[in-house]
């Protein structure tokens, strides 16, 4: 929120510099996000008195001698049409900075430094300035908008800096207001805080007004009381629509609000000053001598002041006259009752609307205004009342209308009077952990207008109606400490807390172990969004009825690409592989451990299943199915379990390079090479592999006890075999047949595989090392020979396998 220092000073005689003020505000909870001098770009511009002014023949230029006080009398060439001898104008001295303007003399194009120069052969030692060149609009200073020189008041001191005269030495604070302090969404609200923190008195804005005896026949009703807890209205007549006075226009300009006319400006001024949105209806356009606040009918239409038409629903609140909607409540007035130059009487509105309704309406209709933004933060009963009084006072002050005695205040009974809050001082200090001296507590709460009464441990406060946030001793504690200073807090290390056991639980530990195992195997952990795109499901060619398509939809996604809760981690892994390749990384291993989301029903009626899942992606010329299988096995090793692999298919994986992964017969996931179609579609230069494993199923093996197996007492025997077999026979089949043949086998390892013409086209050879581990006694050569013969028999009978000659 923009707060001009000059406006603040209307309510508090601020006696510190801007830096101190910023620090004080910061320390009590109001962060100044930015502060700047209004004339921050202007320097070395002084009051110049034109002594002589002569036309330069055949040009629009004038040659002037200008008295610049202690800066001497200077010769200046000036092209403005309103320069004349005896006038006082802003004079930019050599070295001054002012705004450079375009040819239209209105558009600011940056900051320029004034140099001594020659125009048409005449020396010029500075520049007489327009308002635009000083950043001074008509609203900021009368005459500032003139397309010529800015005329300074006659009493200006020659040679003096113009900044104080033009208000360019004023400061603007842009202050962040937290959501609990809607009462500070105004200049006066901030002034109350400034007064409290600087311990200075606050001067209230004048609220008095003097109604005439005039009354009119009119009726105000509120149908939608839940959405409009308070609605006040006041009739003002004999209205003279004119320009507002300079002081008001200047203040509005400083906070970024353009002046329109006195009646409209009064409502805007009160909004900025007190934080209460107001509206003025042109009374002549209110039909039926009535105002009613109600929900819109479905399909009802309204055109707002900015000439936008809206079709409404019963979720929108409207202000109606006797016949039709005349305002979109809390958001914007209707075009049909707009204040015009011809307006003769107005009905002022100052109301409290339910903040969430205004917020939701504003968002649903896409119509935002200062008023709706303000209402969404919440206004209070107190400011509703105060703002109306202030507006009526300003009508009188500006002498732009007569205040009648026709006043309406429809409310749900909430008081604008202070309420009482009693708390224990011990409890307040108990929150803070320090003992704030009683006198400091009383002083601070007095400064904050809580009129504290302390009796023993009992502290009684009178809470102004605008402090809706003050409810408990914790709120009081916060008020005390933010003014007393957080630097008084003495760090302690939870001395009163009881000892607890901490750290990761078994699942968390095991997941970290799996991650570390994958890192050790050369994979990098990635994190991808929990949501993905419907197109991701198409990318991996999922059938229309695939369970993965039963994804939870986000009602209000940022865009369609982030609109579904993911049901598999694969598509984002594919995207990561492709992205890396695009950036020139042609080899790598990535894994992600995250949730996929399985809805029990849609739309959701209960918590969905969030399944911990691990996805592995690998790509590069040195990767193949088996290197990635090795990565998957790293998980098995970390858990001390064995995975089984079976040939399988997936719509996004190579039909002959895909495996189903199981653990103790239970399916846990899959592994395979991405299809060449996906590789092409994603512009991948090298093949990619993915695996996805459901950690939920594996979690039953977490924390498996590790038991030491005593080393063998007798020497192990190792035998190597080289077999010839049909090509279709798998390694797993051979291993199983070997294993089944002898109970003493503790390891079977493939060490060579060969295909060649000498074996025949349909044959291959595989070589295995087999280890026999004795249990009770050493094996003799005869015993081993027996094992070998059993193995050969088993292979021969089951699979037709022979030893290679």
């Amino acid at each position, binding site marked *: 929120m923009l707060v001009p220092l000059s406006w603040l000073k209307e309510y508090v005689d601020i006696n510190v510099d801007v830096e101190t003020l910023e620090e004080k505000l910061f*320390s009590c*909870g109001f*962060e100044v996000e930015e502060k700047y001098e209004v004339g921050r770009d202007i320097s070395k511009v002084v009051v110049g008195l034109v002594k002589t002014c002569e036309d330069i023949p055949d040009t629009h230029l004038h040659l002037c001698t200008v008295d610049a006080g202690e800066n001497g009398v200077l010769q200046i060439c000036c092209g403005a049409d309103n320069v004349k001898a005896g006038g006082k104008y802003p004079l930019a001295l050599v070295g001054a900075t002012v705004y450079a303007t375009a040819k239209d003399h209105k558009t600011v194009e940056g900051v320029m430094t004034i140099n001594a120069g020659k125009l048409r052969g005449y020396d010029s030692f500075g520049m007489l300035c327009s308002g635009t060149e000083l950043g001074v609009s008509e609203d900021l200073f009368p005459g500032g908008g003139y397309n010529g020189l800015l005329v300074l008041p006659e009493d200006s001191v020659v040679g003096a800096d113009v900044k104080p005269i033009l208000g360019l030495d004023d400061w603007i604070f842009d202050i962040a207001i*937290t*959501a609990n*302090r*809607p009462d500070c969404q105004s200049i006066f609200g901030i002034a109350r805080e400034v007064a409290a923190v600087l311990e200075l008195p606050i001067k209230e804005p004048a609220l008095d007004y003097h109604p005439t005896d005039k009354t009119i026949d009119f009726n105000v009703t509120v149908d939608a009381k839940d959405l409009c807890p308070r609605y006040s209205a006041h009739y003002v007549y004999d209205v003279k629509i004119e320009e507002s006075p300079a002081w008001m226009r200047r203040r509005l300009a400083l906070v970024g609000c353009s002046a329109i006319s006195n009646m409209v400006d009064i409502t805007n001024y009160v909004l900025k000053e007190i934080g209460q949105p107001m509206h003025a209806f042109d009374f002549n356009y209110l039909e039926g001598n009535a105002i009613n606040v109600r929900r819109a009918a479905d399909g009802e239409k309204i055109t707002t002041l900015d000439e936008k038409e809206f079709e409404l629903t019963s979720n929108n609140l409207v202000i109606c006259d006797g016949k039709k909607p005349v305002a979109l409540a809390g958001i914007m007035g209707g075009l049909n009752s707009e204040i015009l130059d011809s307006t003769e009487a107005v009905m002022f509105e100052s109301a409290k609307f*339910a*903040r*969430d*309704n205004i*917020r939701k309406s504003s968002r649903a209709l896409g119509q935002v205004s200062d008023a709706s933004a303000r209402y969404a*933060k*919440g206004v209070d009963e107190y400011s509703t009342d105060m703002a109306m009084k202030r507006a009526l006072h300003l009508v009188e002050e500006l002498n732009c209308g007569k205040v009648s005695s026709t006043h309406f205040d429809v409310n749900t009974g909430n008081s604008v009077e202070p309420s009482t809050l009693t708390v224990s001082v011990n409890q307040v200090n*108990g*929150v803070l*952990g*320090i003992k704030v001296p009683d006198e400091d507590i009383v002083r601070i709460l007095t400064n904050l207008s809580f009129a504290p009464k302390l009796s023993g441990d009992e502290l009684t406060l009178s809470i102004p109606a605008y402090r809706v946030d003050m409810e408990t001793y*914790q709120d009081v*504690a*916060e008020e005390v400490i*933010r003014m007393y200073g*957080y630097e008084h*807090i003495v*760090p*302690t*290390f*939870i001395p*009163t*807390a*009881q000892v607890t056991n*901490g*750290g*990761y639980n078994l699942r*968390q530990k095991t997941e970290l172990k799996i991650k570390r195992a994958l*890192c*050790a195997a*050369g994979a*990098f*952990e*990635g*994190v*991808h*969004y*929990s*949501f993905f795109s419907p197109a991701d499901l198409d990318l991996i060619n999922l059938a229309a009825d695939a369970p993965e398509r039963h994804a*939870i*939809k*986000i*009602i*209000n996604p940022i865009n369609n690409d982030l609109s579904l*809760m993911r049901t598999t981690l694969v598509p984002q892994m594919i995207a*990561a592989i492709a*992205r890396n390749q695009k950036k020139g990384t042609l080899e790598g*291993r*990535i894994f992600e451990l995250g949730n996929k989301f399985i809805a029990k029903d849609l*739309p959701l*009626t209960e*918590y969905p299943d*969030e399944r911990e899942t691990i996805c592995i992606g690998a790509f590069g010329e040195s990767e193949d199915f088996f290197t990635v299988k090795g990565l998957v096995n790293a998980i098995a090793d970390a858990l001390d379990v064995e995975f089984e692999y079976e040939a399988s298919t997936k719509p996004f994986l190579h039909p002959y390079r895909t495996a189903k992964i199981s653990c103790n017969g239970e399916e846990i996931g899959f592994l395979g090479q991405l299809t060449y179609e996906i590789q092409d579609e994603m512009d991948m230069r090298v093949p990619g592999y993915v695996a996805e494993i459901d950690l939920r199923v594996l979690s039953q093996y977490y924390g498996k006890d590790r038991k030491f197996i005593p080393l063998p007492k007798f020497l192990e025997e190792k035998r190597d075999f080289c077999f010839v077999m049909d090509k279709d026979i798998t390694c797993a089949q051979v291993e199983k047949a070997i294993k089944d043949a002898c109970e003493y086998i503790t390891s079977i390892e493939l060490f060579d595989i060969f295909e060649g013409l000498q074996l025949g086209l349909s044959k291959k050879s595989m070589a295995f090392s087999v280890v026999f581990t004795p249990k009770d006694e050493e094996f003799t050569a005869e015993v081993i020979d027996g094992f070998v013969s059993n193995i050969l028999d088993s292979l021969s009978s089951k699979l037709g396998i022979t030893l290679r000659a």
Partner: protein
Amino acid sequence: MADLIELSEKLSAIRQEIKNEIAGIENSKAVYEYRKSIMDSKTGKIGSLMREMGKIPNEMKAEYGKKVNEIKVWAQEQFDELDTKLKEAEMRLRYETEKIDITLPAKMRPKGNLHPNTQVRNQIVDIFGSMGFQIYEGNEIETDYYNFTALNTPDDHPARDMQDTFYLSPEFLLRTQTSAGQIHVMEAQKPPIKIISPGKVFRSDDDATHSPMFSQMEGLVVDKGITLCDLQGMLNVFVQKIFGEDTRTRLRPSYFPFTEPSVEVDVSCFQCHGAGCKLCKGTGWIEVLGAGVVNKKVLEGCGIDSNEYSGIAFGIGIERIAMLKYGINNIKLLFESDLRVLDQIDD
């Protein structure tokens, strides 16, 4: 005696031959071969001389043996000397031919890294775990009640505007804050409670500095007599372990619906140590987390007696810490699995 004279001549000839021969030997292998041809007890020119002892008359045996032995010792010396010399030269040559460019790239077994978020998370968990905090991971999909209402943020509360929420149904949403986990814990567990709750959170924000998904770590202590002083004391330990021993904290007023008082916690800039730099935008302080004393309404909503117990809570943005710690300038880099990025962070 004729035999002895004959022997002397023979030995002289051998001696001369050895002298001539070894002058031309250039490597230790040739030395070995030549030595063998001379010294072998069966076939060597000197070695075999002893075998002829039998043929020597007895009275000459002593003299014969002495002379043969002399030449044997002499020959050994010749060979040893030459062998040592040649072996030294050969070793030198071997070393020279094995000269390498030691500036060539190192050979390493490639290893991956945990995600920067995981690394930061582990560090935080280590710190708080050692203080007795348990780790609670809540759901990513939450109900409106746990994410907002139970955290003192009813439907019409303006604080809902502070966080743009993704809705999945009128009731279910993507949690906007890990604080949602607080409520589940307090409903399930009685004080003393000390938990941290890391996890992914979601807000409808997507620009250069915001990601629609990011990670937070919530911390909660509920016990008897817990105060704002404890909050600062606990956070001091935390930031000193994360950012360095000389890191200080500064509390300043802020607002969260579920804490009262609420504070923003700034740490003294660990880059410039408070002098003012680009990282801290010249202020000497960096905002790292939000915290506060748990609002009694939140405790009471979970059935905890606020007269007996009080609590403190804090929330940290994991990516923010990761970005500060590692100097990562764009949050999006953390979600792209760009190996050029992930390869760099190994803390």
